[in-house]
């Protein structure tokens, strides 16, 4: 393999990525509205009807409780889309709360941590309790 070709290929990839930024921007998805989150979960889950939703103040993460089976789903913004995880005890390793901020540790190779900045500490405490109850 020729080093010139290898480095040239990497430079070409960097240029293509820059072109992509120039054409499409680099701002990511936002989970800013409950209906956006509900619509997303209804698309990907066979049975979903919203019971409770907690949107992160930075619009980067949210929690949603399914009224059908009581499951809780973590949704995080990823690129221009979203990624969801059904939270359960083996997956959810730990929950920590610091005021209105909930920090979740997950047994997930590509999503090991998530933080939710909730509107106030009472809401965060309520969700913390639900998560410990899983």
């Amino acid at each position, binding site marked *: *393999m020729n080093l010139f070709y*290898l480095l040239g*290929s*990497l430079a*070409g*990839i*960097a240029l*293509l*990525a820059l*072109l*992509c*930024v120039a*054409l*499409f921007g*680099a701002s990511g998805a936002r989970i800013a509205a409950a209906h956006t989150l509900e619509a997303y979960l209804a*698309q*990907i889950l*066979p*049975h979903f009807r919203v019971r409770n939703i907690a949107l992160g103040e930075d619009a980067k993460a949210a929690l949603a409780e399914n009224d059908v089976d009581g499951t809780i789903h973590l949704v*995080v913004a*990823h*690129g*221009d*889309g979203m*990624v*969801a*995880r059904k939270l359960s005890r083996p997956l959810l390793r730990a929950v920590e709360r610091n005021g209105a901020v909930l920090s979740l540790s997950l047994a*997930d*190779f*590509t*999503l090991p941590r998530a933080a939710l900045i909730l509107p106030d500490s009472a809401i965060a405490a309520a969700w913390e309790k639900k998560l410990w109850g899983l």
Partner: protein
Amino acid sequence: MMHLPDPVALATPFFILLVIAEMIFARFSGRARFEPRDTAASLLMGFGSVVIGASFAFLFLGIARALQPFRVADLGWSWLAFAACFLLDDFIYYWWHRASHRVRWLWADHVNHHSSQHYNLSTALRQSWSGHLTPGLFFRAPLVLIGFPIPMLAFVHGLNLVYQFWIHTEAIGMFPRAIEAVMNTPSHHRVHHATNPDYLDSNYAGVFIVWDRMFGTFVAERVEEPARYGIVRNLATFNVLKIAFHEWIGMFADLTKARSPHEVFCYIFAPPGWSPDGSRDTSDSLKMQWVSRNAQSQSG
């Protein structure tokens, strides 16, 4: 021995030009989506795949040469031999691809290609880095044993891969019915990349969609059911190392927890998502859940 060019190497500059053209088209038409970090990850996966593939080419060539003395015929270099080789290679690709979706060991490698939530020409280049850890060549061994020359096999397989590049796009709608009936097209392959339960595990074809029609895995794209791309449990990373190896790591983590030889076997050979207690979703269980939901909504 005849020397044939590498179709993929020859086509690579055109791949890049077409990715740029699709980006510009997408920006002004809105008929395709790009995300810079996703695109960069796909291109880096393609780069890594070429480098790793070249590093392990000797392995594949060595096995093919070891098998060659046991061939039953010498089919030579006629045009008919080329055509037959192309057709049979595509037939074997269908079964290899189907197995890659239904056997976790093979899925650990192939999942990388499906790991983007986008579907554009850069997704075509999101190729795996671990093909040498799978028994891919043994699927092709019959072609060596039948008597096709090894350079011909490499050449037609390269053509097959080049064909599959352009079908990774949302920019093209549907072709006339006669073409859609025989050839794999962007429409058919969008269905293959979709995670909608009724689209899962379908349209495995490389070039000719007739294999899916023959073996019952064909699903047509429906306008009222737009494809949602990616995998059932989408990745939350653009890190190419994590993309390349996440399923291998998941599989080995499961193997360390296996409590019987049966569980070891199933963690390796059962469909992706298999678990001893059935707590995880497989494509089959997802399909059943959606059938049940549709039945409920129709009866209610």
